[in-house]
């Protein structure tokens, strides 16, 4: 299973890439694979303020609709506009071109409590076995 080591992971299958106090987030390739072909993505407005733990939108596939949660609060700096016409970018490259949102994080240190790549891999494997 793919999980780059440069970022943090949540139990709800989002990834967070920290650069100073700007946090880029998306959903993991595992989550995208489980959802299968994504058909629609709802994202917050640029400038909106998000609280830690809030739902910031949802991902819809032919199989399911799933909420996206932000483990860290802050202002929305940018959303991935390309996804409105090309939601498949998340399936093709969940950790790269399929990013969802960039946040000006109010407390990026909250992310240290999340899993690193190895912990996330173990978490997914455990969940699959049980």
């Amino acid at each position: 299973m793919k999980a780059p080591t440069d970022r943090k992971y949540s139990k709800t299958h989002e990834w967070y890439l920290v650069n100073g106090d700007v946090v880029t987030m998306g959903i993991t390739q595992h989550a995208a694979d489980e959802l299968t072909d994504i058909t629609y993505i709802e994202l917050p407005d640029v400038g909106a303020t998000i609280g830690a733990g809030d739902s910031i939108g949802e991902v819809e596939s032919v199989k399911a609709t799933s909420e996206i949660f932000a483990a860290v609060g802050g202002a929305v700096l940018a959303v991935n506009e390309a996804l409105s016409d090309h939601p498949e970018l998340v399936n093709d490259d969940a950790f790269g071109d399929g990013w969802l949102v960039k946040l000006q994080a109010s407390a990026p240190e909250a992310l240290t409590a999340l899993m690193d790549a190895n912990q996330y891999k173990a978490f997914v494997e455990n969940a699959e076995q049980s």
Partner: protein
Amino acid sequence: MKDFADRPQQDHPLLFEIGSPGLCAVSLPQLDVPPADEIDALPPELLADGPPALPEIGELDVVRHYKRLAHRCFSIDGNFYPLGSCTMKYNPRVNERVASMPGFAHVHPYQDDADVQGLLELLYLLRCDLAEIAGLSEVTLQPAAGAQGEMTGLMIINAYHQSRGEHRTQVLAPDTAHGTNPASCATCGCTSVPVRSRPDGRLDLDDLRRKVDRNTASLMITNPNTVGVFDGQIAEIAETIHAQGAQLYYDGANMNAILGVTRPGDFGVDVMHFNTHKTFSTPHGGGGPGAGPVAVAEHLRKFLPVPQVVKHEDGTYGWCNDRPESIGMVRSFFGQIGVLVRAYTYIRSLGCDGLRDVAEKAVLAANYLAARLKERYQMPIPPPYAHEFVTIPAFKDSKVTEHDIAKRLIDYGIHPPTMSWPIHHCLMIEPTETESRATLDEFVEVMLTIADEVEHYPERVRSAPHTTPVRRLDEVMASRKPNVRWRPR
């Protein structure tokens, strides 16, 4: 000679693509009054440029068109339909006979009560029967389907809390709940909070205790639940909910498993809805028609919708609007009458013992299938099951998914079960009580054959269905770039 049987069936044209100008299916008589000059009476800017481009086809071609389409319809009258979560049982023919009686089929809601005493009596008796089956005090027949029943029930619960000077906004539902549960919460202005289930499919009581508080309006629970097991903790769940002043809501989607065996009112439920179209037969699918009567405990009766069908002291039947604390009307007129007539017929033709027999046979059939399939199909939840069970078709070194198995079942003339919910990659199988042992055995043989195919010819399964007018539909494109309007070629 050309083999016409080989002609691809998807070439069957639309009505708009057949016929020719001037053809007509009906001959209208000459007008015996002078024609009104309606064109001049209308504002010119509202007039179309010409008559609409309606199909021009002869009667026989219209009949054949629909007959061909009808032959393609899949229904329980033709084939096995083990669709979990939405009981697809046989609709006995006597239901149709009764529902088509002129006294039920040809009446109008504005007729005088005196003209429709038979229908009113039936509705009154049905609401009493449903209250008895629910173990609750009173029933409204108004809601037109299960989801509207949920909304009605939650509105009643809101009215109850408000009458006590409380405003509670949180509704709990297990994480395996039907999607309609959280949707109904949102419709009623509440927030839905999921409660975790344990690996054996039962509710995690610790998680429930953590989440229930004085802001909890209710817990919505389905029992047996969506993974097909009866949660024996239900009395403890009810106690936990009631201790915080909240109400226990029962989603009656799986009522088929407990008919006459136990009653929601007896295990602590305050409000429930029936899906009469599931539990008490009546044909449904493709969105309707349904009926979602709601039953409530004594303390909630005064909030039920009006008008309520009642029996007057002189023995006649009529409508009562005198309920000042009622939540009001939730549907025009009196409910989905045709479905309710069928439900009443079903209940009365089976009787008390017959209804219990329904539940016992439905449970037996599901457990029989599970026991026979378990050699080749994984069962994530341990038995015994209620009226349905979930299985995960996972095969070693194979990329075949539940989706492929479902498609392959179509080739064998079996409707695919519910897929991928409430457990990832699962199939949810509900045979119902109406299938014979021979049909159940046939289904098992098909499932085992498919398991063999997965082992030896996986491509055959992955590319199914092979026998349908259209093969695999491009669901992804249909979602990403929906084409919702027909255009002439």
